[in-house]
């Protein structure tokens, strides 16, 4: 998908901070529009998480009869399932966003951007920012659907906002990582092949079922899996009063991953530019 860059400001050199922001803004806009214009690509990242949440709520509602569950985890399985759905949707959408970057490389549009007087960093930042915007939009829609279905966010509007920002940070972390992979490999197939790995990691966590009820090696893996802690941070916003631990898990953890991932992405970009 091509959106012509017609902003005359882009004719200026890409070296200043101002131009970095300007270029990133334009490319963010392109990224967001590109996602929204491909409903067939974006739909699965909405449909499947919501479906799994609905399925889980209807299948595992009896868990709410366990006093431990209602006291320590969530008031209902629907309330529990929200966080997993948000996580799943954001992660899958982020992989698709990175695949778009890989397609740009495959189809030569990436080279076109490199040949234009725009900031190199903005090529990556635009994608990441676009991914964050879509994630915030996605999380907001998810929460509204769940609230409409009867779920309640115990920490109120701040918790709602906490989830939206947490989703954006998670998206930043995942799309930066996948963007690095896209730039390194130049192949959308390679990026898409990360999907099963993410799928595996999500199952080996408390995204779909509480860790408390797992056992053996599975429980051990889930305990150590960072996704468990991120999703529990999200669950905290939904099922508990506002608390620092929720921000630590839902914000700081993805942010830490994001910093490493962004470094990886920018390093991949500079290696690619050096190679060409």
């Amino acid at each position, binding site marked *: 998908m091509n959106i012509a860059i017609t902003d005359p400001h882009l004719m200026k050199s890409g070296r200043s901070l101002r131009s970095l922001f300007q270029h990133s803004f334009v490319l963010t806009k392109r990224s967001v529009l590109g996602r929204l214009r491909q409903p067939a690509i974006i739909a699965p990242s909405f449909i499947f998480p919501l*479906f799994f949440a*609905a*399925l*889980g709520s*209807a*299948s*595992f*509602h*009896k*868990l709410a009869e366990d006093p431990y569950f209602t006291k320590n985890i969530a008031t209902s399985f629907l309330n529990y399932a929200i966080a997993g759905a948000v996580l799943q949707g954001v992660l899958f959408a982020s992989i698709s966003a990175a695949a778009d970057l890989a397609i740009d490389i495959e189809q030569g549009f990436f080279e076109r951007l490199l040949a234009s007087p725009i900031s190199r960093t903005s090529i990556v930042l635009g994608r990441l920012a676009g991914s964050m915007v879509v994630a915030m939009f996605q999380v907001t829609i998810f929460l509204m659907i769940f609230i409409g279905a009867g779920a309640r966010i115990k920490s109120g509007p701040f918790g709602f906002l906490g989830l939206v920002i947490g989703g954006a940070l998670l998206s930043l972390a995942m799309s930066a990582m996948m963007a690095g992979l896209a730039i390194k490999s130049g192949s959308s197939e390679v990026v898409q092949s990360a999907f*099963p790995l993410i799928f*595996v990691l999500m*199952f*080996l966590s408390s995204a*779909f*079922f509480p860790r408390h*009820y*797992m*056992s*053996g090696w*599975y429980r051990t893996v889930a305990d150590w899996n960072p996704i468990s802690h991120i999703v529990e941070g999200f669950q905290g916003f939904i099922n508990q009063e506002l608390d620092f631990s929720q921000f630590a898990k839902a914000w700081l953890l993805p942010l830490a991953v994001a910093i490493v991932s962004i470094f990886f992405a920018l390093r991949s970009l500079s290696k690619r530019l050096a190679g060409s």
Partner: protein
Amino acid sequence: MSSSPVFPSIETGLHAAQPMEVIKVLVQRSMMRVRRMPSAFIPSLIMPVFQLIAFSGAFGFAVTSLGIKNALDWYVPLNAIQGASFGAVGVSFGLINDMQTGFFDRILLAPTRRWVMVAAPLAAAIVRCIVPVAFVIIVGFLGGMNTPGGLLALVCVAISAIGIGLVSCAFALGLTFRIQNLGAATLTQFGIFFTIFLSTSQVPISAMTGWLRSVARINPMTNVLRLARQGFLGDVTWEGSWGGLLAIAVLLLLSCWYAMTGIKKFDQ
């Protein structure tokens, strides 16, 4: 042999190709494609095993709390059916590929009966089903799965898995003949996915609530899962079997009709 009314001295072509010979060679071709492009087949092998481990590990408590001894007893039949259906649907990916390369035109031009073009992929699908099913069962045994129903348990799960595999393949063929692009594959996978999960995939009907319970009660997959699971949860009985067998038979009939009407469109 027959002669052209215009050129009586020339025998036109040869006798019509023997259907079984054509089916055999097309099945061989399908297997050859698996050998030469294993990356297309491996996901249908790995994903069911992964899901078996994931479901039994993550959701195990939900079924063991209902009195089921081992979560694997509950999930092995489900994942065997999933593996079989996705393995079988892979045959339609080959068909889509043939349409894109133009090779499908060559098959259409051959003087073979149209039903052979449905029967051959279905025969290939049987072979493609068996491998994932066997894989899942082996992993189940290694994980300590129980089979109080004995050999009949394995027979029931095999019948269920292969039956649903054939249904999935026929459905995929019908869609592919109509849509003729990768959209058919996506739609097929969606269809199978929702059919399987909107049944007793995760918990028994007694543990469900609301809309899911209503849907699962009328979903034929619920009967098929009952047929497949009974030998892993207890004895194999006629009461536990006939519903699944009937569901498989009806679904097979409908999906084969769908596939046949799809291939006939090429003559219209």
